[in-house]
């Protein structure tokens, strides 16, 4: 009995914090999503207008499709790059000192703000930017490439640049835990490098990959500022839909979109967790 009370007490602070700063706001958002709005105010009600409009508008589907598209492409690219970088750090670099040094090197871009890292692409990719003028001076192209900036390409480029580290870190962490004797055993057993990778390393990295995947997909699906800046406001994802509504004081409609987005993201994470039992693997 006493023990149980202690356990409850120990769990209480975090429970209180989560309740106050996570659960309560979400409940509030859900409640407001059923409210009504005028030009300048919102009023309590229990109406389904916001959801009705959301599901009846073709824009919603395009925008959700775009959100998934950005998430999927960014995920694939960050996974390949992140895995390669982590593999190099974990297996090719021999000494711990160099591993730490190179790992810190990866984090250097994170010393500046997210927005600055993103915006610095704009002069680089512009019509008269560095990329275009270099390619023209090399004679590779005659006309500046218009699709470099303010396009899906630039949006995804920025996402990959911003979020690859979130893939590197958990995968690197998983790789460092792999018992090296397993790899030796694979080699002794006659496995080629590729076979070792496929049958030993990748399965043992699954939790890392899964954590990285959750980071990247949730970050990309919740983003709005990268899409706005890198597409020159020409593309939209769900985050932008919400931010547009908020800036126009349409809080109930923004809440409804947020609720749908939240549910979508939770389903995605649920599916991912089906694939790998992170708790068990850790």
């Amino acid at each position, binding site marked *: 009995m006493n023990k149980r009370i202690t356990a409850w007490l120990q769990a209480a602070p975090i429970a209180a914090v989560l309740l106050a700063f996570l659960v309560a706001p979400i409940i509030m958002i859900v409640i407001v999503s059923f409210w009504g709005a005028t030009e300048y*105010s919102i009023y309590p009600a229990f109406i389904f207008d916001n959801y009705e409009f959301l599901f009846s508008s073709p824009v919603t589907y395009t925008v959700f499709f775009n959100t998934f598209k950005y998430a999927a492409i960014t995920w694939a690219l960050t996974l390949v790059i992140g895995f390669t970088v982590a593999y190099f750090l974990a297996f090719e670099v021999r000494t711990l000192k160099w591993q730490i040094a190179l790992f810190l090197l990866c984090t250097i871009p994170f010393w500046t703000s997210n927005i600055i890292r993103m915006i610095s692409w704009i002069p680089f990719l*512009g*019509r008269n*930017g560095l990329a275009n003028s270099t390619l023209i001076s090399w004679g590779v192209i005659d006309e500046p490439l218009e699709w470099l*900036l303010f396009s899906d390409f630039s949006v995804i480029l920025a996402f990959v640049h911003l979020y690859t580290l979130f893939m590197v870190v958990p995968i690197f962490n998983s790789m460092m835990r792999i018992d090296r004797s397993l790899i030796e055993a694979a080699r002794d057993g006659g496995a080629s490098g590729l076979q070792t990778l496929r049958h030993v390393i990748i399965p043992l990295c699954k939790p890392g990959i899964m954590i990285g995947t959750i980071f990247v997909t949730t970050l990309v699906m919740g983003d709005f500022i990268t899409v706005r800046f890198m597409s*020159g406001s*020409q593309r939209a994802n769900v985050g932008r839909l919400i931010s*547009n509504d908020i*800036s126009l004081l349409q809080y109930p409609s923004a809440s409804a979109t947020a609720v749908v987005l939240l549910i979508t993201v939770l389903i995605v994470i649920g599916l991912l967790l089906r694939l790998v039992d992170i708790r068990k693997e850790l």
Partner: protein
Amino acid sequence: MTTISKIRYSRRALLKTGGAALAASALPAPMVWGQETKNITLRQFGTGVSNLNEVATKVKEDLGITLEMTALDTDSVTQRAATQPDSFDIADIEYFVAKKVWPTGNLQAMDATKITNYDKIVGTFRSGKLTPESTIAQGTAPHTVGFVEGPDGTSFVDNESGWMTLIPTIYNADTLGIRPDLIDRPIESWTELLNPEFKGKASILDISSIGIMDMAMVCEAMGEIQYGDKGNMTREEIDKTFAIFTEAKKNGQFRAFWKTFDESVNLMASGEVVIQSMWSPAITAVRSRGIPCVYQPLKEGYRSWGGGIGLSASLSGMELDAAYEYINWYLSGWVGGFLMRQGYYSAVPETSKNFMSENEWGYWFEGKESTDVITSPFGDKLAGAGEVRDGGSFYDRMGAVACWNSVMQENQYMVRKWNEFIAA
């Protein structure tokens, strides 16, 4: 200890207020620039165009009032005025925003008799007519939301009732900005924004309430749509307008849309865009980098906007007096001169004249050829001697306004359409 000092403070404050009240009742008429307002802080917010630190510094110097400024974008300004009434004392908002904000009761009406230069305020903000012969443009013309029926008035009236919602501070006539070095021919009409010649090199602003007006100017100039009132469109008109622009967007007409002032400057200066909706100081900013940029007058006229300052409903007592003092100071000329030298207009131009050189007044207000170099208040060279302002004089420009920024009855519908347009 803390309680004691608090009590002391409040007693002192009480004495001071009492003293000030005594002084005020003993010496009524001539307003002495504030001894009693020395320690007052007023919190003002607004868009970047007029929330300038120079104004705060100068008002501290002249009146002793501390002005805390917050600069936000147009949408955030509306949001704050409507939803956070306790976060400000003075709201520097646009007239069309007043239509949204006034019904929330967050602002209080101002007594025009306390405004020293009221009679000198430009006609546009009082009767609606710039000159007695002017016709009133479409949209939310400032005088239509400038007055309410009394101190607690909730609805706008169409006469000079003596109770003002906002004191006009700054306004201008907007048009398209172009890069004359990259467009080798004259541009005369709003239709050029959708001219396929500028495919991938055009832009409009992503602020729905203003963007829709630019769109309307274009569609009307193309002869595609005849609007009853561009400032108050029907659903059908909104649908048609967006259909035209969505098609243009899908054909790759636009390079990007911009939301903030600096985005518009960068798009133009970098050559990403050669023709776009723009604000006057953005043209100035591009030019001060040595890049040619023209605020092109167009034959269909200008889209105009006006800003003003409103008082928070919670202002009272000494703070309220200080706010009136600040407003009177604002209209007394220095700020006007400061703003006019950037290309805006002051609500009381004649007081600003004293704060501008003859050359500056001639160039900015009268549309005369400059006799010497024109520099901005920040020291950047804007024009050489012998140049003329784009669009000419104050009366040429403000007299050719075709519509005012506005909030329409179908605003919610329009906003949803705007979202669709952005996502299309």
